[in-house]
């Protein structure tokens, strides 16, 4: 067919050329055939139709190109078919034609013609459909060439479509019954599959890839039989179970071909109804372990499970049916069997298989954790012998596997399953860590609460790689990732929550113990949230104590625990954070637990830290502000202890480096002498270990005056430094003015309108300075202050009166 001497051509070009040549011949013969049809010459028509069909004998074309040619021939044969019908109406029997076409000497054209006549023959009902079908499907054995045979049988399948003696079909009855229809399709299927499989073993090893590709292209021809089978109206479950499926499976298993098994199993699973699958699980699953080792059984199982799972969701009664059939047990057993029998199956695929099973379990039995555990056990058993830790793909699958129950069930409960840690243990350390992150994330996402010491301990076992450095692993996470991980843990801590504060205390202790093993790098992330949780617990204990519950853990013990915890943090060292925590603890001890000694101790620790470990002046300012703020609100202290603490704090404020800092700190300290009176409380009241609020007007005045002095000093300092543009001291004045106003409003009798008035003038003079006018922030601050005064003046109540004498 190929002409020589045209130089090298690529295989594609060759294909195109061959197809063209064949196609031309088909067209030419078709032309003569149609002419013969017009002339009503049967002999010639048959001759030329055979002539065009001979082109299909080519072995040169790839399946794709062959398909094009086939379609062309297919179309032409429709003319011939019409001609047969015409002859039939003129009185020629189909029996006669059926014989006549068999006189063709060449087998492939003969069989195409036979199928064509055969379909007309059945349609005419002159013979029983089953007889013709049986004959056709048998005669087609004459073509043993895979591609040609597949297309021929596909043609048979296509022309006989709708002519099968299916239940309810017009060809039923004398033409046969559903059994004949099934038989026909099954035989055709079997034969086609044999041909398809045979392709694999032809030609050289070199062409294997190409051949497999070609086979994939032909897969649907084979699968069509199964599709038609599934479309038979008469196919009921009994027939399916007793006849169809066993024969299909027999063929699938016995063909021992990877591609075919893979494709056909999928076909069966996708092609037939769910309830059929449910009833035949045993057969379907029984076949799985028998498949070739190259077959991706997990994909097959996955699609089966997927279908079943979706089926279960359609109707609750289905789940009962599942239970009745022990679907889960069967599936699990099948998976194990596959894993044991196919020793070469990659670990990743095994894992994927179990993922599917687990997914199925999760959606069908949302409340059956024991099933999950069983699956995990099976996974562990299957994967133990396969080295998963060096197989990145397997690892990935395992992580996915372990994540499934986390999403579907309560995380902590899942973790409590016997086999969960076993499976997790299969992972490489790095992956275990990844998994740990996942677990934490899921807990956070679902805001699952971890409610007992045991559970916390267990959880820590799982996320151990995040909590401590695991030996023998190179921790290559960078600082940022590490911080992310640890902040996850920090968030996790807040999920530890037991209604019972005793238990909560135990949880705290347990967590603390664990965290201490993590080293300073982690402690700075993990301890603060733990401390806050502890303080929160103190609150809850207090509430319960007041309610009169008998408790093992008192506020005191928890606070003591907190103390130790913060001390550990201070040793990290994380002085600033620790200081803040001490203050928070002190506040809690004072205002919640009302334990003066402990509160004092916390302040003491905070002061020590302030003195020893605060590295720079800026931090000092912040720390000091915090100390003052906290101390301001603490009311548990007796006058004496308070005196000491306040004294210390004011002392610190004078020792700050920068004048503005000093000034502001002194202002702040003034508040230490002027505590707020909570609403509904008298100035003189003291109850339950709470001291009355301190209100020392003189001391406040001393502070404010000192502040003014410092501000003046600052002004001079900037003058000396020739920093004319420096407005910071003016800002201080406005600040101080605000403090004055505050105390004025608060009713501090030392502050009279005249004192204020002079201060106002002082400030307004300073503000007249050009530089000040250019400082927008300062300008706004000042303006707002004035506005406030103006506003207050307008008030009708006592405050308005108070302000009245002031002139702006």
């Amino acid at each position, binding site marked *: 067919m190929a002409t020589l001497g045209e130089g090298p051509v690529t295989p594609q070009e060759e294909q195109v050329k061959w197809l063209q040549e064949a196609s031309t011949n088909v067209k030419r013969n078709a032309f003569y055939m149609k002419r013969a049809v017009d002339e009503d010459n049967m002999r010639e028509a048959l001759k030329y139709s055979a002539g065009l069909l001979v082109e299909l004998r080519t072995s040169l074309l790839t399946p794709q190109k062959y398909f094009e040619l086939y379609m062309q021939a297919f179309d032409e044969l429709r003319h011939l078919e019409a001609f047969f019908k015409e002859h039939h109406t003129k009185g020629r029997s189909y029996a006669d034609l059926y014989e006549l076409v068999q*006189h063709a000497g060449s087998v492939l054209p003969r069989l195409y013609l036979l199928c064509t006549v055969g379909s007309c023959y059945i349609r005419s009902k002159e013979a029983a459909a089953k007889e013709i079908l049986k004959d056709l499907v048998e005669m087609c054995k004459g073509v043993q*060439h895979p591609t040609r045979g597949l297309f021929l049988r596909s043609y048979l399948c296509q022309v006989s479509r709708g002519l099968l003696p299916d239940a309810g079909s017009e060809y039923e009855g004398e033409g046969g019954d559903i059994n004949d229809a099934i038989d026909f399709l099954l035989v055709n299927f079997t034969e086609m599959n044999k041909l398809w499989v045979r392709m694999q073993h032809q030609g050289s090893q070199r062409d294997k890839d190409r051949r497999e590709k070609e086979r994939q292209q032909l897969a649907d021809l084979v699968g069509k039989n199964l599709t038609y089978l599934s479309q038979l109206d008469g196919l009921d479950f009994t027939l399916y179970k007793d006849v169809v499926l066993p024969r299909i499976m027999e063929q699938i298993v016995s063909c021992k071909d990877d591609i075919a098994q893979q494709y056909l199993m999928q076909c069966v699973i996708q092609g037939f109804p769910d309830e059929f699958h449910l009833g035949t699980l045993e057969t379907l699953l029984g076949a799985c372990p028998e498949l070739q080792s190259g077959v991706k059984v997990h994909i097959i199982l996955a699609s089966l499970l997927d279908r079943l799972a979706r089926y279960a969701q359609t109707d609750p009664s289905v789940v009962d049916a599942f239970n009745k059939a022990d679907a889960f047990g069967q599936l699990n057993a099948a998976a194990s069997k596959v894993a044991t029998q196919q020793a070469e199956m990659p670990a990743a695929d095994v894992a994927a298989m179990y993922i599917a099973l687990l997914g199925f379990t999760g959606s069908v039995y949302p409340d059956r954790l024991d099933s999950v555990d069983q699956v995990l056990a099976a996974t562990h058993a299957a994967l133990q012998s396969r080295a998963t830790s060096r197989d990145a793909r397997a690892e990935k699958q395992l992580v996915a596997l372990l994540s499934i129950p986390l999403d579907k069930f309560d995380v902590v409960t899942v973790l409590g399953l016997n086999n969960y840690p076993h499976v997790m243990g299969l992972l490489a350390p790095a992956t275990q860590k990844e998994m740990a992150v996942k677990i934490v994330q899921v807990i956070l996402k679902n805001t699952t609460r971890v409610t007992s010491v045991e559970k916390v301990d267990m959880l820590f076992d799982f996320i151990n790689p995040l909590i401590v450095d695991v030996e023998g692993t190179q921790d290559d996470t960078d600082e940022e990732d590490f911080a992310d991980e640890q902040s996850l843990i920090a968030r996790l801590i807040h999920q530890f929550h037991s209604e019972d504060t005793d238990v909560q205390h135990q949880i705290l202790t347990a967590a603390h113990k664990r965290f201490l093993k993590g080293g300073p790098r982690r402690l700075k992330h993990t301890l603060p949230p733990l401390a806050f949780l502890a303080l929160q617990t103190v609150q809850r204990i207090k509430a319960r104590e007041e309610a009169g519950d008998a408790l093992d853990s008192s506020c005191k013990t928890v606070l003591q625990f907190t103390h130790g915890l913060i001390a550990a943090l201070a040793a990290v060292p994380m002085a600033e954070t620790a200081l803040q925590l001490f203050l928070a603890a002190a506040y809690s001890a004072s205002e919640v637990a009302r334990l003066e000694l402990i509160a004092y101790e916390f302040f003491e620790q905070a002061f020590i830290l302030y003195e020893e470990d605060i590295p720079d002046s800026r931090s000092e300012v912040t720390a000091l502000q915090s100390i003052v703020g906290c101390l301001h609100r603490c009311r548990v202290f007796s006058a004496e202890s308070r005196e000491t603490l306040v004294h210390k704090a004011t002392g610190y404020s004078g020792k700050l480096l920068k004048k503005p800092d000093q000034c502001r700190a002194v202002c702040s300290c003034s508040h230490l002498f002027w505590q707020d009176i909570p609403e509904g409380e008298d100035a003189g009241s003291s109850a339950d270990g709470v001291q009355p609020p301190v209100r020392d007007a003189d001391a406040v005045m001393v502070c404010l005056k000192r502040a003014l002095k410092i501000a003046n000093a600052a002004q001079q300092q900037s003058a000396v430094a020739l920093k004319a543009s420096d407005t910071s001291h003016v800002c201080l004045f406005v600040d101080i003015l605000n403090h004055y106003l505050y105390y004025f409003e608060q009713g501090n009798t030392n502050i009279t309108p005249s004192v204020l008035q002079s201060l106002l003038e002082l400030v307004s003079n300073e503000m007249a300075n050009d530089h000040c006018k250019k400082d927008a922030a300062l300008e706004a601050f000042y303006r707002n202050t004035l506005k406030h005064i103006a506003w207050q003046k307008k008030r009708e109540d006592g405050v308005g009166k108070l302000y009245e004498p002031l002139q702006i």
Partner: protein
Amino acid sequence: MKNLFGGLGLGQGVSVQLDFKPAEGQAVRTATVKAKGNETEQLPLYTNRDTIAGEIKVSNVPGKKVEHQGVKVQLLGVIELATERGTPHEFLALVRDLAPPGEIIAPQTFTFEFNNVDLQYDSYRGLQARLRYLLRVTVTRGYGTTTVKDFYFWVRNCEAAPAEVAGQPPIKMEVGIEECLHIEFEYNKNKYSLKDTVVGKIYFLLVRIKLKYMEIEIKRRETTGAGSAAKNESETLAKYEIMDGAPVRGESIPIRLFLSPYDLTPTYKNVHNKFSVKYYLNLVLVDEEDRRYFKQQEIQLYRLDTACDAASAPATPSLRLGG
């Protein structure tokens, strides 16, 4: 040539015409017989014990009377063999005198009839042997002017169908080449009528060669002579592909070969001690290197009773699968 001369008359020629007339009201049947090349000819058809009757018209050239020593018609059965060219063997010779010596003044018609003729052999045209029947009309005249004209007719004899089972055991055989190819084949009968269908199966027991296709040939073998002088000549009458591609072990390929489209005759055994005609089915397997593997198997052919033989009658109303 004689006719030609006769026809031209050369002064005193006669022309002879012969019409086969049906005896007792039955139609004259005809047979379409292959002649040289692709041509066919139509010949009157008779069978054993038929009566052969007709009319012979002897005409003179108008206005010229012809004297003769008698007119006769002979019925001859002749076997011609290629090996004995020019000496046909007459195995049957009957004669009817139509007219005593006399004159033909005007065209004259003679009727004749051979009753119940023993036509035991079929007409046959092969490569080496021919068996022919003819009517020879002779108008005897003086030396060199005798007019002889031959009119051929065809004879077919039918057999009753053989007893169903016992008479036709299937042909079954296992053949092969060691470690290479083993097949088992089966033809449903060993005796087929000419309109029959050969139904069978090829079962592949072992295939180690790459086959390309498989076909069945119908072969005819003529044997002439006997003993050491026997001569065989074979001819392939048909090729019928039954398989395309390479089968694997365990495949079975169906055979259904309709015999009717082919120009076959019954098997003839030792026709008048002169020749035999035998038929064979030759199963040929061709591999990818075009090597041929074959197995030849004789089958007996016979002609079924005329009633069934008539082409117009459908064999059975049911599906004609030939089984």
